[in-house]
Structure formats: structure tokens, C-alpha cells
């Protein structure tokens, strides 16, 4: 079910005016206007131009009118339309980014919060506008040594790409500390980039600011060249997506794993160390980039089930059919814009489903989700009934001493 990337889909120089002449364009011509994209889109009912209407207009040579509408600002890059399209059209990978980029380029003004996030990312290497010199400040609080590549000056097995929210914000740092403890428990030979790390840029490419993305790609490829490591592991599905899908276009060639994939591959070594039972009902939210895009549904579930006492329950929408938290595609910085238009926050929609399972914990695999879901639980008054935890946090909690 997961769309795979063909070489033509990956070509970095695809442009809207020539798209119909490339193989992916032939696929666009085969659209049967079934409406699956509109019906599965979390904001589909609020879009004037749904993906299939965009295809219709593209085929008629009338795409201009789409650029004048807000429709694509609703796209949260959740890949739902792409994995369900019966013609296998790579909507979220190819067409929608191009159309969104043009839409943004022609707007007189952009939502403030969104614009600031992009500017911060360019200037400081993180969307929050934190100082890049403080990126590794969390490290001493990890409780275990977290080597930094520039200091340790040796080849390592794993380059752990920490990412932004998990470097700066307390609830994100909780996840980083947990990951560091797990790596130590497993004896992983790892290091981080520390202050040299910036946002991997997936937010850039899927919010469809391709220039920003390329700046960050160039920067990281240069940094990666300086060090010796065998693979990249990251706890952020957006970085994972960028490294798997987009970076290879620019000459990147390292094996990449999400932390949960990395840990699941070592579950036999990890399991004996999970000695502290947690006695929790846990429901797992499939993040869009790791789940639908990356095809990794079982690894996080296997990890959760390895924790003694954990009972895993599923929400109505799970795996391929998971509901987006609303943070992708720039949605992370469009909450007030959506609110001003009277739209339901997708994180609240998701949290309602999670609460309906009766679970104590909403387990996640993406740093965005920690903030979005904790916020939504508070807004809806469910914050006493349910907590949000990264799978790594739960694993670390279950580690014996």
C-alpha cells in the first residue's frame, strides 16, 4: 500500500509547467476523479480545490486559479491521499508541494506564525528561533554521556540526529534523555552533532519552501562529510522522511532509521532489560511520516508490547488509516490561522479518538505530537485522563536500574 519512489518521482527539477510530460505526469493524466483524495483529506471538506480538482485544472491548463485560493494551506502533508489514490498518483510527494509552493509565492502575505517559523529556521536552524549555540545544552541533563562528534574525533556507528523540539523544549528533551538512556543500555556506539546540527528541513520541503530546504540540505551534507559514521538514527519522523526521500537527490547515501526501527531491530537485547512493569493501557498514534510514508507500523507496536504490563489498544483510525495530528506541511505553525477560520484542530480530533479507547497513555513517535496532543488534551479537559509519551520514554521508564 505504501507508495514507492521511482526515479522520475525523485527528480529534483520537476516543474509544474512540464509535469505532464514526465512519467508521473502520465499518471496524473490517469486520474479518474474518484474523490478519494478529497474524502480522506483531514481538511478535505474545507478545500475549494481538492487534489483531484487541481488535477482536473492542470489537465485543462487552468492551474492559475488554484494559486489564488487558500486551499492548499490546509494540506498538512499527511500522505493519506497518496496512499489511498487508486491510480497510485504521488500527490503528496510531487504535485501538491509544487502547487503549494506557487500558492505561497504569489500570496501578498503569509500567516505570521508560519512565516516566522520559516525565517527562524533559515536564521537559527530551528523554527522556534532559539540560539543555535544552545542546541546541545540539554546534554548534561541526560544522566548518561552523550558524545558530540566534533569533540570525540573518532568514527562512530550511529550518528543520532536529535532535531529541534527534542533539543530545546523540556518535553522534547525528555524524549532525548530517554533515547540516550536506551542507547547506553544497549551499548550503542553513538554521537550527536551538537551545536552543529540544524533542522533537517523536512518542514521546509513539505511546507514547500524548497529554497530553505536546499540551504539546509547543503549545510548538512557538508557537515556529514566531516565525520565518520555508519548510519543515521533519528527520533523525528520528519527528519527521517527528509533523509530517506529527499536528501538522496542531493547525493546523501547513509542508511537511515527512526529510533523505533533501530530499537525494534535490537528488541531481543532490549527486552531482558525492560524489567520494570508499567501496568498501562497504551494506544499508539501512527505518525504520518513514519507510518504511511515510511511504512513502519509494527516496530513501535512491538516495542510497546515488549514492556511488561503494557496493554496495547487501537484507535478507530490506525496504521495506514491513522489521522494526522495536523502538524505537518507547516500545520505546526498554522494553528491560529486554522482557528481564525473556525476549523477544528486535527490534534483535538485525534485526541478524542484516543480518549475513546480508554487508554491511559497516548504513545507517539514524533516530537511534534507531544506538544500538539498535550495541548489538545488540556484544551478538551482530558489532561487528567490521559498522558502523551514517546515510545522511547515508555521504554526508558521500563528499564531496570
Amino acid at each position, binding site marked *: 500500500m505504501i507508495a514507492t519512489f521511482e526515479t522520475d518521482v525523485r527528480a529534483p527539477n520537476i516543474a509544474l509547467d512540464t509535469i505532464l510530460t514526465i512519467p508521473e505526469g502520465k499518471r496524473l493524466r490517469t486520474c479518474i476523479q*474518484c474523490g478519494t483524495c478529497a474524502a480522506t483529506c483531514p481538511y478535505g471538506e474545507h478545500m475549494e480545490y481538492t487534489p483531484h*480538482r487541481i488535477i482536473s485544472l492542470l489537465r485543462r491548463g487552468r492551474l492559475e486559479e488554484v494559486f489564488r485560493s487558500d486551499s492548499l494551506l490546509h494540506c498538512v502533508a499527511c500522505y*493519506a491521499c497518496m496512499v489511498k489514490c487508486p491510480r497510485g498518483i504521488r500527490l503528496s510527494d510531487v504535485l501538491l508541494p509544487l502547487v503549494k509552493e506557487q500558492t505561497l509565492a504569489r500570496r501578498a502575505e503569509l500567516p505570521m506564525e508560519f512565516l516566522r517559523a520559516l525565517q527562524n529556521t533559515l536564521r537559527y536552524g530551528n523554527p522556534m528561533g532559539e540560539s543555535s549555540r544552545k542546541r546541545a545544552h540539554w546534554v548534561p541533563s541526560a544522566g548518561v554521556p552523550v558524545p558530540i562528534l566534533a569533540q570525540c574525533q573518532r568514527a562512530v556507528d550511529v550518528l543520532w540526529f536529535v532535531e529541534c523540539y527534542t533539543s530545546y523544549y523540556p518535553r522534547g528533551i525528555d524524549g532525548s534523555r530517554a533515547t540516550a538512556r536506551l542507547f547506553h543500555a544497549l551499548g550503542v556506539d553513538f554521537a550527536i552533532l551538537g551545536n552543529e546540527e540544524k533542522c533537517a528541513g523536512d518542514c521546509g520541503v513539505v511546507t514547500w519552501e524548497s529554497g530553505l530546504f536546499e540551504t539546509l540540505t547543503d549545510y548538512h551534507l557538508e557537515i556529514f562529510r566531516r565525520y565518520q559514521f555508519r548510519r543515521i538514527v533519528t527520533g523525528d519522523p520528519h527528519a527521517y522522511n527528509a533523509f530517506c526521500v529527499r536528501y538522496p537527490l542531493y547525493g546523501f547515501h547513509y542508511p537511515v532509521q527512526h529510533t523505533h526501527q533501530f530499537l525494534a531491530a535490537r528488541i531481543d537485547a532490549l527486552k531482558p532489560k525492560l524489567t520494570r512493569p508499567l501496568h498501562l493501557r497504551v494506544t499508539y498514534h501512527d505518525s504520518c511520516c513514519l507510518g504511511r510514508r515510511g511504512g513502519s507500523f509494527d516496530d513501535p507496536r512491538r516495542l510497546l508490547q515488549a514492556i511488561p504490563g503494557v496493554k496495547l489498544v487501537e484507535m478507530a483510525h490506525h496504521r495506514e488509516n491513522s489521522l494526522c495530528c495536523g502538524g505537518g506541511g507547516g500545520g505546526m505553525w498554522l494553528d491560529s490561522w486554522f482557528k481564525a477560520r473556525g476549523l477544528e484542530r486535527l490534534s483535538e480530533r485525534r485526541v478524542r479518538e484516543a480518549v475513546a479507547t480508554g487508554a491511559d497513555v497516548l504513545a507517539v513517535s514524533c516530537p511534534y505530537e507531544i506538544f500538539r496532543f498535550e495541548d489538545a488534551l488540556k484544551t478538551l479537559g482530558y489532561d487528567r485522563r490521559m498522558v502523551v509519551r514517546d515510545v522511547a520514554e515508555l521504554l526508558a521508564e521500563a528499564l531496570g536500574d
Partner: protein
Amino acid sequence: MKPAPQDHVRIGFYVCHCGTNIAGVVDIEAVARYAATLPGVALARHYKYMCSDPGQELIIHDILEHKLNRVVVAACSPALHEPTFRQAIARAGLNPFLFQMVNIREHNAWVHEDRAAATRKARALARAAIQRVVHHRPLVIRQVPVLRDVLVVGGGIAGIHAALTLASGGVKVHLVEKEPTLGGHMAKFDKTFPTLDCAACVLTPKMAAVAAHPNITLWTWSEVAKVEGAVGNYRVTVRRKPRYVIVDLCTGCQECVDACVYREPKFSDAFNLGLGKRKPIYLPFPQAVPPVVIIDAETCIELKTGRCKKTCVEACGDRQAIDFHMKEEQIEINVGAIIIATGFRVFNPRRIPYYGYGHYPNVYHALEIERLLNAAGPTGGELVGRDGCRPQAVAIIHCVGSRDEYTHPWCSRVCCLYSLKLALLIRERTHAEVYNFYLDIRTPGKGMEEFFKTVQAEGVHFIRGKVADVYPDPSPEARGRLIVQAEDTLLGEVLKVPVDMVILSVGLEPHPDAENLRRLFNLSCSAEGWFLERHPKLAPVNTFTDGIFVAGCCQGPKDIPDTVAQAGAAAAEAYALINKGHVELEPNTAHVLDDCSGCKSCLPLCPYAAITYDEARGKVSILETLCKGCGTCVAACPSGSIVQHQFEDDAIFSELEGLLADA
């Protein structure tokens, strides 16, 4: 290598334009001019359509007029017109094997764009054939007698119809069915579109006719295990699974079923797709043919432990039809032709998890609904959900596992119409609101569009949009209600329709046994896994294996009228073959020269067991009637003592030299 006897060879070379099919890419005239310069070529011509009557007449005329003794035609694939030209040559009094055909259409014009390169290739191919044909010798077509019996594999409507057609023509038919009863999928349907005939009412008389027909031997609960031989003479081994009830002694009274130590039916009933229950001893369905019970070895206490009171045996009494010691049997059948009618499987909707099949109790696939609506089904014809609900609103989702790149890309052809039928039946019987979510309504065929109109007029809702999501209604009073989410693409609105039951119109896919059958019968499959017909238009029931025909959905999705028509066609083709009494075989057999050293390397390699070793002479010999001309022994013989007609070394080497020489 022997020098070619070129002095007396007079070759006629003909190159075909095939309209613009070939001439559009290949410079035909240049090829003809070139061929005329080659040794042995008496004349070279080009013509618009060589296969046309005037084209053939041209060859015949030239043979007589110019005393040609070899002919080469460069045109389409020999699979299409080699017989045409051979016959034309024979009409001119020349042996038809003094001929060679060159494929410059499929192998050249249709796959190349560069005119100069394509023309160069055509010249090389022509030269290869011209150098080869010099070595051709006159050969005689072999005739092999044909057995008059026919094997039909599969006892659904296709197999039933083919068997009955042949049997009424006086042909002895063996019908093999792997289930315990005839009937296939059609027996599970409630009504049939567009006439709304009761499926059982039209099918069961034919099933009974099969059982009663003196010319049909019925092997139910049996499978083909081995196929040997070739067209006209197939040796088929049928594996007969033990049903633990002697077919000839059982009267179908079912007293044993009543007497079974299990008071209540407890086990999943396969005929009702697990929606109903049966006992370990059971009749698959009331009109089963043969009307004979069967014992399921997995659940019968006696067969599992040997410690049952055997109340069934007691109930059977003097009839003594129950035999717990029954063993699997192997039966050998000799037939002249085989009809494959092994049907299809419905798509497993679990593969599309967001429709909730197997997850929400009231999501069904269409075949299950046929059973629920059927008076003989598990609910006696009442539409009742797994949770006991009687639906007020029903969604029918079209194209589940059809027209979808992630599952099956093809249109399954029958789903639109059966969905219309189910919508109408549900509307008539329950007055529920029925919502059909469709991509396109496809109703080709006699009476089908009219049927669509009838269903529309009955008040069934039609929403043009593919369903993207099925999930439980989150509202507190929902009680198992599901939300079906789709865009009404004609209105441009996303709809969330609350329903009590969801029916998935699942597509048709190749039977899981198809791959195994393909190997058994040496058939070809399309990329999707359907059995491949020899030609989609002109040989729709023939396969690439002579004497084996296909009918029904094993060849591709089709409705009952098309299936029956195809089964009739397959029966007619089989009848034509066996009624002639013999088959003509290509004379491309292998024969052994005196140099044979008797090493026996070839013996185990022959797939047709055509080679025997003569102890006295210390040499092998090949039985021409069994040889199929595959060439395996020729290639394997270490001393080069096995030679194959039409593929002698000198012909092949000359052909290669011709192909590789610079044009």
C-alpha cells in the same frame, strides 16, 4: 559443414508491407532489392498484404511460373500466418516445409523507431532465412489418433455447461471438482442480474442433469494430481480425497446428520462463508450434487480420536454408507482434450484495512450478503447483521479490490451489476435506505442498462465517489453505526453517511490454485494471474497448449451469460478436436543417427518419455508419436547423434551466419 546445394535452389522471397504496420518503419523496397542479390534467390517481391488472397496467389503463380523450390516470406509472426503460407505453397504442389517465415513486424517494425536501423535488421533477418531455407527438406505432417474422452476441471457453471454440452453430443466426460458438491460460486448467489432469476432455480437442474447423465463421470472432492502426454492423448491422475461416505450407497437422507453426537451445528460452514454452522457430518447445501453427506476429518470425533459412539453409523443402518477407513485414491483417466474451468476467488477485503472488514461486525463482502439474502442461507433470507441489527441504512461500496493500483488494477466487470442487484433486493425486502458509492456505473450487455434504470427508479441512492474511510460513529447513541466517508464528486461535497451495514463489492481475482494448475497443465498466465487464451479475439478459449481449453472466470472476470457462452465455445473446440479423430503434428521430431554411443544421457531428460534404450543394439531410439520436438535431447547428446527435423545443424548455422554477416 556441408556446402549448400545452391546450384539447383530457386528461392522466392516476399516481403509484406502489412499496410503501414511494417512499411511505416521498414524500407520494404530496399529489403526486396537486397534479397534479390543474395545467392539462390530467383526473385524478390514486395506486396501490400501477403496474407491476402492475391498475395497468396502471387506466391502460387511464381512457384509454377518460375519453378521456385523454396519460399521465404518476411511479414508478421509465424504464429499468425505460417499456416496460411504453408497451405498456399502446398496448393502450388511444393512441400510446405520448403518454406521459412521471417518476423519483421512484432520483432522489428512494432518495436523500433529508427527506420535505417530497422531496415538493416530486416535485411539481416531476411538473409538468415534465405540461407537457412536452402537446407530445408520435404517433410510429412504426422497424424496421431485422438482419444474421444474429455476431462473438465471445475464444477461451477462453466464446467457444468461444458460437460453437459459435450455429453449430449455423445462424448464421455470426466468432471473433476475439488469441493464436495458441484455448483461453484453460482450456487451461492441468491438472484442473478439483470433478470433476477433465482440462481439455484436455474443452476440446480443443470447440476442434477450432470449427475444423471450417462456420459458424465463425476469426481467431486477430487483434484487433478498429475497430467502427462500431449494433445489427443492426455494421461491424467485424479486424487480422490476421502469423504468417509460411500457415494453410491448414501441416499442423502441426512438421518446421520440428525443423529450426530453433536446436537447442535458447531463448526464454521464453508458454503455459507462461515456465516452459518454445520456438524462434522453434513450436506454442503440442500441441493448439493451429488446429494451425499461428507464427514470433516478435522472435527469428527471418531476420525480424530477413534472414540465416538458413532451414532451416525447407527442411523445409517443397513445402508452402510459410512466408512471411517476410507483412504485417498488415485485414479488414472485417459482423455483427448481438457477444459479448464476452475473459476476465481473473491478479493479479500482485509487487504484494504480502512474499510473495516473483519474489524467491524456489520461490514460484509458481497458474496456474504448473497448468502444472507438467500432463503436457504444462515438467516433464512433475513438481512440481519452479525450483531443482530436489522439495518435501516446500508452502504454498498463499489470497486473494492478493483481499479486500484495497490490491489488489482483491473475492472472486475460484474461488481457494478451485482451491486445494483443487491441494492434492489435490499430495498425490496427491507425498505432500508441504500447508498451505492460508485466510481463509474458500468452496465454493458443486454438488458443491463435497463436494469440500472429500474434500480435508480426504486429510490436507491447513487453517490459518485470512492469511499475513503469507514469508521464507527463517535456519537454516544450510535450503537454500532458506521460512518461512510466519501466525496460526492458530482456536487464537490465530502459526505459522512451514517449506516448500519456496509457491503463491500469485492472484485474477482485469480484462484489461489491457479499457479499450481498452470504448472500442472502447462498453461500460460497473464501478469495478473488469469489463464491466458491463445488469442484475445480469435482464439479466446484455446490455450498455448494444444488440446487444453479454458472457460469461465479462470480466464478473466465475466458474468454468467459470458461464462456459459465461453463454456459452450470450449466444448465446441474440444468436440472439433476429438471428432476429427486425429491431430496433425509438426514433423519437427528428433531422430537418432547410427553414431549413438548408448550413453543414455538423453533418457532422463525427455519430458515426454519418448526415448527408449535398445539393449541389443546398445543405442537409443525415439518414438516419433510421442516426440514433441522440444529439442532437449538434441542439445544434450554428447556425440551429436540426435538430429531434429527443421533444426538440423547446417540449417541453424547457416541461419546464424546469415544473421551475423554484415548487411
